[in-house]
């Protein structure tokens, strides 16, 4: 599903975020990428959605070499991957319904389909009664659930979650992880980037550890060991 071969990313002047990283994530896996702040975890997510370009190496997603894709293809790539960000990245001037619908509208989906699917997805994340509220009218945990709904709505094969619990209390964090596990059970590959030890240890799934831009650990049923 996701294959990184010898990926290196250097930020000017000479900060090596990732150095010769090799990874292979299979379809349907739930993988936690752990490491302390500034070790290159977010750079990895940015490379996977082509927000950054690798200086060396090759990235293949679902058989598609995205290492050097053009601007027009980037939009197409992002419509096939669901992304959950730590800072939510919701459009404040749109309601939750509109935020989720936007992900389908950019794909050119018909309105009837959107009106049908969006409430269903919002129901999955428990926001069916708040779909006409604006992001700033709901809590952080609810905002993150709305982001998950937006990431899921076009049924992506891959869901990238970059520190999705970073701004949440433990109760909300547990709820978000539960939702991610549910999504994974439906067959979606989930890549969870986090430095939340408790969350990773509870999951008992594959753990990839990154330290100073290098992959220093990859356990099939791992724990947060740093």
């Amino acid at each position, binding site marked *: 599903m996701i294959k990184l071969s010898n990926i290196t990313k250097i930020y000017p002047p000479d900060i090596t975020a990732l150095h010769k990283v090799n990874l292979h994530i299979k379809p349907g896996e739930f993988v936690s990428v752990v490491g302390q702040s500034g070790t290159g975890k977010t750079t990895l997510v940015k490379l996977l959605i082509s*927000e950054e370009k690798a200086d060396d190496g090759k990235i293949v997603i679902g058989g598609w070499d995205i290492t050097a894709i053009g601007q027009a293809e980037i*939009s*197409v790539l992002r419509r096939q991957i669901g992304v959950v960000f730590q800072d939510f990245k919701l459009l*404040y*001037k749109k309601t939750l319904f509109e935020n989720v619908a936007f992900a389908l509208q*950019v*794909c050119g989906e018909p309105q009837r389909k959107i009106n049908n699917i969006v409430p269903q997805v919002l129901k999955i994340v428990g926001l069916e009664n708040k779909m006409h509220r604006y992001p700033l009218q709901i809590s952080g945990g609810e905002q993150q659930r709305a982001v998950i709904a937006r990431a899921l709505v076009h049924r992506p094969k891959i869901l990238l979650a970059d520190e999705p619990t970073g701004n949440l209390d433990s109760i909300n964090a547990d709820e978000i992880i539960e939702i991610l596990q549910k999504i994974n059970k439906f067959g979606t590959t989930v890549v969870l980037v986090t430095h939340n030890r408790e969350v990773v240890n509870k999951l008992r799934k594959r753990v990839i550890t990154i330290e100073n831009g290098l992959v220093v650990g990859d356990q099939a049923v791992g724990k947060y060991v740093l």
Partner: protein
Amino acid sequence: MFLLSFLRVIKFSLQDIARNIWLSIITIIIITLALFSVNLLLTVKVLTSATVGAVKDKIDVSLYLKSEAPENLILALKSQIENIDSVAKVDYISKQAAIESFREKHKNDPEILQALLELGKNPLSPGLIIKPKDINNYDDLIVSLNKIDNDIIESRNFDDHKAILAKINNIADKASEAGLFISSLFVLITILVVYNAVRVAIFTHKREIGIMKLVGASTWFIRAPYLISGVIYALLGVVVAIIIIYPFLSLIQPYLASFFSGLKVNILDYYNSNFLLIFGLEFLAASLVNVLASLVAVGKYSKV
């Protein structure tokens, strides 16, 4: 698919204008003020041209004829002059018409009227009033008139007119040059103000543009609502400018009419007869500036 996206883009654009209502109002106010200033400048330009045109229109050449010249020869001369290319119109003022006009002009001056009575006969000569077709070809007209050899012509001294004409042309040219310079400067400032207003409006959407890009929106899908908003802002700006400018012109028209009494100056008529041209061009120019500003600003913030 394209139609669906297009309709969505229009919907997003209207939604964006409504949900950022204060920002939209401020942008429209700036565009309106800029257009109002442009219209003020246009009003000044129209008044200047009307004044210079009216003064030029008053310039004519008088050919004084001998007192005893028979009417048939005068009419033959009139027709000869009418055939000259640079002549627009020739008016024949008979001795009788000349004295009547003189009396009318001095009707409040009893001394002059008394002197005329004491003379006992009409002292005025008949004359031909010649209006040139183009005031700039005045010299050609004088040459042609000087070439006419006819005994009934009493005098043809045109030198005074040449001096006045040179002065008027000089003033008109300078007014035109200054007008062009001020207009260009003004239009440039207006463009920069509107361009910046739209850029500031889009700057507040910087975060949104980045998010749209991360969700997979194409650059066109992000850009188009802002382009449409820019055109809508321009349209609303022009409409508000029209709503303001017409009462303003109606208010100043009586003052202009009294200030330029004797001249055909009606700024309202000018706006009415050139409505589509003036406001159509202003709408196009404002839209163009807005679209350009939107393209640059969105392009800058959508590089994610």
